[in-house]
């Protein structure tokens, strides 16, 4: 076969891949738009106040693993204690911190060891103790001290200790809206079928003014990296998750903030500590189990920004995070490979899993190969560079269009970045992002796959710079 024939075929293959992505994103845009529009209309008259007064509302156990969080943990707990919800408990799991996380909690909240039969239902690393407060104001706080085992292991320990039927798994340093629990429990109450999990929209907290665990002012981050991630989160939440929720094919509820039906989680076996993508893996397993048991169920998604989290601001940490995400995705897809194109699993098997396989996991690899391919052609074929320029411009303009659509949805729905200059800065970020941010993330993903093949298992540590605090007056 002649070179030009190979080139021709490869070109058409890349084009088909591209067209499928385009169509997919267009559909995602349409579905997401419909969901946002409906939600906006609904909140005009639906109020959660009767729920607040009701003792019939299901009680919630908030589970928050903590590792080396001594700087902020007491403040984070304080903001959790102030959440608006009639009946809930907070379970902090100290995952064998090497710093003074536990001591600070004990001191601040007047904790004493609780003599309490702890049933290791889901097996975890050794639990050294459970603490409760002597002070009545903090009677709904529990702290578990255990040997280090990772996030999944800690959450399982939390599940073993949780008193209530609904568990809410969060990252301890996330800032939650005061009515976050009220909003996130709604799908559990409002559906005709059993709801096994619900999630919401996660926002980027970097550079926002947070006082006493409360979001006071939303500001745009200074760094390009954080801003690029804001755009990414817009794309992922305002277009991705919403569309999937519309189709009932949601495979991932963010580990930063998600609510689950505890009994279903236990029936499914709890979190899998052997994978780094434990949040996705659990939901997939839960959905799969319900499907296999032929039970009707739903996964809820609340199109409301309920949780704010800090994103990596250094390239190194970002690389580690994306590397881990890729390994997690690959591991989950491999564990549940039987679902791929399996009609028994309906939307999950025929749409969601294939999508994650080809467009989330495989896409970075294909892009990576594509770059090599182009370089190869540039060097060895006689084709005019202008041709590549045109291809490049097509891909680039599509990427920009997709991000701008996400920004448009944000403008249509929440407009959380109030100052007009923020919009201009975000537009500037959108123009630069496909050139600098995206290739980096893609490379991290490819490296993630390589690392996975080489057997890397660690999480890596995230350096917390601490969310911006305003100067406290005395």
């Amino acid at each position, binding site marked *: 076969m002649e070179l030009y024939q190979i080139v021709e075929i490869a070109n058409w293959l890349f084009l088909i891949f591209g067209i499928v992505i385009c169509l997919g994103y267009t559909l995602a845009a349409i579905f997401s738009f419909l969901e946002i529009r409906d939600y906006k209309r609904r909140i005009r008259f639906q109020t959660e106040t009767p729920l607040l007064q009701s003792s019939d509302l299901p009680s919630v156990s908030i589970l928050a693993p903590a590792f080396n969080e001594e700087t902020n943990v007491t403040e984070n707990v304080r903001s959790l204690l*102030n959440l*608006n919800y*009639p009946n809930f408990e907070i379970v902090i799991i100290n995952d064998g911190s090497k710093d003074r996380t536990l001591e600070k909690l004990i001191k601040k909240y007047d904790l004493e060891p609780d003599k309490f039969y702890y049933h290791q239902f889901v097996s975890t690393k050794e639990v050294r103790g459970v603490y409760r407060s002597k002070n009545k104001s903090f009677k709904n706080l529990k702290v578990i001290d255990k040997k280090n085992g990772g996030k999944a292991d800690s959450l399982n320990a939390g599940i073993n200790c949780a008193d209530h039927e609904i568990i809410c798994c969060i990252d301890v340093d996330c800032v939650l809206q*005061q009515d976050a629990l009220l909003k996130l429990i709604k799908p559990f109450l409002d559906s005709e079928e059993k709801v096994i999990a619900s999630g919401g929209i996660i926002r980027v907290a970097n550079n926002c003014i947070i006082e006493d665990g409360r979001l006071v002012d939303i500001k745009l981050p200074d760094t390009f990296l954080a801003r690029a991630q804001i755009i990414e989160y817009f794309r992922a939440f305002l277009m991705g998750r919403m569309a999937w929720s519309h189709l009932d094919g949601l495979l991932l509820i963010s580990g930063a903030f998600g609510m689950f039906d505890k009994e279903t989680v236990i029936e499914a076996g709890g979190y899998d500590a052997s994978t780094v993508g434990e949040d996705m893996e659990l939901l997939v397993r839960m959905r799969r189990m319900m499907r296999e048991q032929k039970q009707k169920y739903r996964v809820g998604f609340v199109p409301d920004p309920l949780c704010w989290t800090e994103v990596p601001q250094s390239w190194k940490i970002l690389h580690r995070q994306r590397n881990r995400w890729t390994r997690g995705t690959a591991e989950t897809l491999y564990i549940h490979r039987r679902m791929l194109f399996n009609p028994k699993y309906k939307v999950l098997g025929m749409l969601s899993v294939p999508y994650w396989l080809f467009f989330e996991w495989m896409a970075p690899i294909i892009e990576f190969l594509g770059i090599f391919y182009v370089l190869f052609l540039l060097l060895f074929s006689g084709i005019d560079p202008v041709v590549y320029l045109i291809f490049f411009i097509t891909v680039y303009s599509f990427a920009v269009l997709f991000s701008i659509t996400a920004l448009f949805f944000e403008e249509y729905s929440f407009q959380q970045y109030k100052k007009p200059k923020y919009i201009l800065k975000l537009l500037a970020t959108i123009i630069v992002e496909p050139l600098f941010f995206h290739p980096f993330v893609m490379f991290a993903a490819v490296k993630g796959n390589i690392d996975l093949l080489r057997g890397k298992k660690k999480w890596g540590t995230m350096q917390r710079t601490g969310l911006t605090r305003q100067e406290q007056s005395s």
Partner: protein
Amino acid sequence: MKRILVVEDNPMIVKSLEFKLRQEGYEVLVAQDGRQGVELMENNEIDLLLTDLMLPFVNGIQLIEQAKQKDPDLPIIVLSTSKQENIIMDAFNLGVEDFITKPFNPNELSLRVKRSLRNAD
């Protein structure tokens, strides 16, 4: 002239209370969150505290505790959405005079304020 401190984060309620109480001849100080409430309480002599329980930064219970520390005889009226008995009990155990649930009747609230101030004298 008696001075009342109103601590409430709902702007509509705050404005209405301020208007109504001023009209009835009281001097009214206003705070929209717990922290501001504590500050105003520390820096001023007040004759009555009217507060919500769900407040930003410093919640109502903590505010009430601090108020009682500063002046154990200070009449305190709680204005809250909660109808849960245990919360109402907690409030009364702290020494609160009266507990009004939202939505409330402004005229009735005004009567209770008058009564509490009278009892305190």
